[in-house]
């Protein structure tokens, strides 16, 4: 059941919206499948002139199952700009330039998304260009090799940040077999070997750049019927594929794990505490419960933040991330500590707080305030067509429909202190835990 408060908020926010959108997601939308399996979601918004197009391919670094081949989903984020016979890169860019379009792409564990935001009159042409590159991408081995260097350049520009290295190390330590072991960038040795993998890249494209893996999201100043006929015309002939990856299942962890990173230049030390958690769910309370713990336990209003950051001033950054991926992933808490000597203390405080949720029930009133916060947070986030499309894209990677947004927030609305306690007892436990520290001072990592 939807909470009455949700419905009221949605109505007061967007009085023009129809009743079809009585959940937290306030926009009515259409969702249709073409015969070839391509899914189209159209969301007319009340923001004028602009249209935002997100094309989500349900393949991210999770799909990189062969050893030595990490980073290929992300490589395609790049290769897709390498053009086709009809639209070589120069022409593709010239068209986008004529349209004043902002075009880019991103990759995560579970998805690769290509997005373009532009003036509404340019929608037919941009849909044609996108249809062309998804169906007829053509790059030669030389262009391929050159693009792998741009990917290495991306790794290089990230490499100055200890947070990137911390993330790499946490994953590589906590996971032994699942593809979440590597980041979306991939292992450095795999990136360096990419130039010789032209044939594999064609195979990767052939597997995943297929209609049954793809969802087109169009949000903005549009008419759903017209968009459907444009998509039929341009994308209808795209051939369905047959590949299904076999993603290795991570065995349960049996004891706590540790790792340490020696950082070569001056930085403040970091500690990250991670626990194996569940896969995303919109039918039980688990995802919502761990999200609630990440907020009640570690955000700006939490007692631990108050203690470590505001009162004791031992930490200058504290944040937590709940697991919300297709497959079971990590609940993480990360802190930047001002002095090396405080690392063990901060680590112990984080562990005690996270695992404390399994014993002490949360205050029901605090949970209600959090629920109120979430409703406003979600509404404030949808402040333009691009962010509406992007929000939907993140959920589409998980369930391929915006309906999961309402289902997830409904689970959240029903969440009880006991649900939270149960989730903590199941996941935030010693044997599920990985701790990684990072420091530029010698000798800090000794355990």
């Amino acid at each position, binding site marked *: 059941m939807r909470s009455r408060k949700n419905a009221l908020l949605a109505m*007061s*926010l967007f009085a023009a919206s129809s009743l079809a959108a009585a959940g937290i997601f306030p926009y009515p939308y259409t969702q249709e499948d073409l015969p070839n399996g391509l899914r189209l979601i159209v969301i007319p918004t009340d*923001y004028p*002139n*602009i249209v935002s197009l997100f094309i989500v391919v349900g393949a991210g670094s999770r799909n990189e199952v062969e050893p030595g081949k990490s980073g290929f989903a992300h490589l395609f984020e790049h290769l897709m700009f390498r053009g086709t016979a009809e639209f070589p*890169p*120069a022409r593709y*860019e*010239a068209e*986008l*330039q*004529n*349209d*004043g379009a*902002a*075009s*880019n792409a991103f990759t995560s564990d579970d998805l690769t998304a290509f997005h373009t*935001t532009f*003036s509404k009159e340019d929608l037919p042409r941009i849909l044609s260009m996108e249809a062309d590159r998804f169906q007829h991408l053509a790059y030669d*081995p*030389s*262009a*391929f*090799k*050159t*693009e*792998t*260097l*741009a990917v*290495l*350049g991306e790794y*290089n*520009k990230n*490499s*100055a*940040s*200890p*947070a990137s290295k911390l993330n790499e190390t946490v994953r590589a330590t906590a996971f032994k077999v699942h593809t979440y072991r590597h980041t979306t960038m991939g292992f450095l040795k795999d990136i360096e070997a990419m*130039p010789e993998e032209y044939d594999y890249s064609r195979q990767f494209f052939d597997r995943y750049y297929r209609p049954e893996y793809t969802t087109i999201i169009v949000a903005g100043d549009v008419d759903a019927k017209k968009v459907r006929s444009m998509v039929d015309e341009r994308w209808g002939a795209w051939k369905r594929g047959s590949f299904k990856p076999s993603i290795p299942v991570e065995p349960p962890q049996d004891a706590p794990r540790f790792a340490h990173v020696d950082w070569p*230049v*001056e*930085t*403040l030390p970091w500690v990250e505490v991670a626990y194996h958690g569940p896969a995303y769910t919109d039918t039980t309370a688990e995802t919502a419960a761990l999200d609630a713990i990440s907020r009640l336990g570690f955000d*700006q*209003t939490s007692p631990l933040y*108050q203690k470590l950051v*505001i009162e004791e*001033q031992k930490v*200058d950054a504290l944040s937590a991330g709940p697991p919300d991926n297709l497959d079971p992933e990590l609940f993480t808490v990360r802190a930047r500590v*001002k002095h090396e000597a405080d690392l063990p203390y901060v680590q112990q405080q984080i562990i005690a707080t996270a695992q404390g949720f399994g014993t002490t029930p949360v205050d029901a009133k605090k949970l209600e*305030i959090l629920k109120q*916060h*979430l409703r*406003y947070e979600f*509404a*404030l986030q949808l*402040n*333009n*067509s*691009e962010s509406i499309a992007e929000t939907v894209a993140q959920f589409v990677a998980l369930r391929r429909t915006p309906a999961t947004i309402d289902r997830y927030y409904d689970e959240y609305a029903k969440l009880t202190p006991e649900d939270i306690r149960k989730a903590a007892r199941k996941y935030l436990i010693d044997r599920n835990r990985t701790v990684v520290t990072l420091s530029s001072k010698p000798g800090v990592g000794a355990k």
Partner: protein
Amino acid sequence: MRRGAVLFALTAASAFGGPRIVQLPGKSPLVTLRFVFTTGSASDPSDKPGLAHLTAALMGDGGTKDLTYKQIVDAMYPMATSVDVYSDKEMTTFVGETHIDNLDKFYGLMRDMILHPGWRADDFKRVRDDSINALRVSLRGNNDEELGKEELYNVIYRGRPYGHENLGTAAALGKMTVADLRDFYRGHYTQANLIIGIAGGYSPEFLARVKRDFETLPAGPADRFDEMPLPAKITHNQATLVQKDTRSVAWSLGYPIDVKRGDPDFPALLVAGSWLGQHRESGGRLFRRMRELRGLNYGDYAYMEYFPRGMFRFEPEPNLARHQQIFQIWIRPVEPPNAVFALRLALFELDKMVKNGIPPAEFEKTRSFLSKYVNILTKTKSAELGYAIDSEYYGIPNYNEYIRGALAKLTVADVNAAIGRHLRADNLDIVGVAKDTDSIRAALTGNSATPIHYNATKPPDVIEEDKIVERWPFGLRAEDVTVVPVETVFEN
């Protein structure tokens, strides 16, 4: 100068008529508030670099007279709101957005942050630590690209009001006291310096109340930036190499230009900059020749206005208006063996643009792009409001109309003439962040070729061009290259 006269007229009027107001009324249930004070690090006392920034940071991340910081955060939480504070050379911005249900409560908290700061010692200690760590760790330690860009500004404006990082120096921050901040607040948080921006479905009564509240600030004085000394003239190429243990080499280069938003040549230079290197788009000349064709790095861009935090953002934040701007090229990190070649290629492309101008067909494309891209820049109400405030400051009409109108009248000859008047491919400041600064210095000052290393075959015309690029002259003598250990940057 026309610009100065307009600014003076505005500030003079406001000294008598209260804060300036920029309004975008509408029906949206979301209300955006932007309080912009036209003061910033260019107003820092010379012995207290970073004072303007730290004052704003404590106001935004500390308690008020009545509430502790914790109480403010708790009060904002159910509304999912916050106030973001950022500070540049001439502007300090407090911005927040709320659902109209919560407008009164949210506004009360935001107002007290600005009108009744708490100045608590424990907040001060925390916020000052944050600033020092932002300099030493986040900027100097963890972000080679922004380090290079900010150091370029420091080098170009050395000895001038813009000549220090907005955050200040670690040494000066270490000596600052709450009393310094309160002094700065009293002298600069005035009605004459204030532009109030508001957008969304607020009522006229609400706006009248905001106006009344902020009329309790002192009437003046107003900060003046229209008569600042100009940066020193760059008479030959010069390079600063920041020595740091890092994987690759990040470059930034540029020089001051006497053109800012509202000046006659600004739209023409906007076209030139977009053609050479539109930020984070693949259509720019540098991107195509350096990344796409040669795989040198992740991207290469050009700028006519200050654009900080570009590695995290696709569109610039508004309210970073400046009276003095530089032309800048940003070369993202390059593998060391190709680093000097990449720098040469950027100079080669810049030289080509300066000598040959922009081809007519490409001018049309770039103009079309920019005419529509303004919609993207102002896609949120908050951004639209920010641009409107900047337009008020620069004395120009609504930004979208200003740009579209000016572009419609522009010809390729205008653009190429403006390039001729303001841009050049020599007399540059270059900043590099690198590990092996000795060999880079040797390559910059020696006259030997620095060929590119490819992993794939390239067409003959590219190979031919590379032969010219690999020997592109820097004209740098040994004394023109300074090596700076990273530990000393932003320290004193």
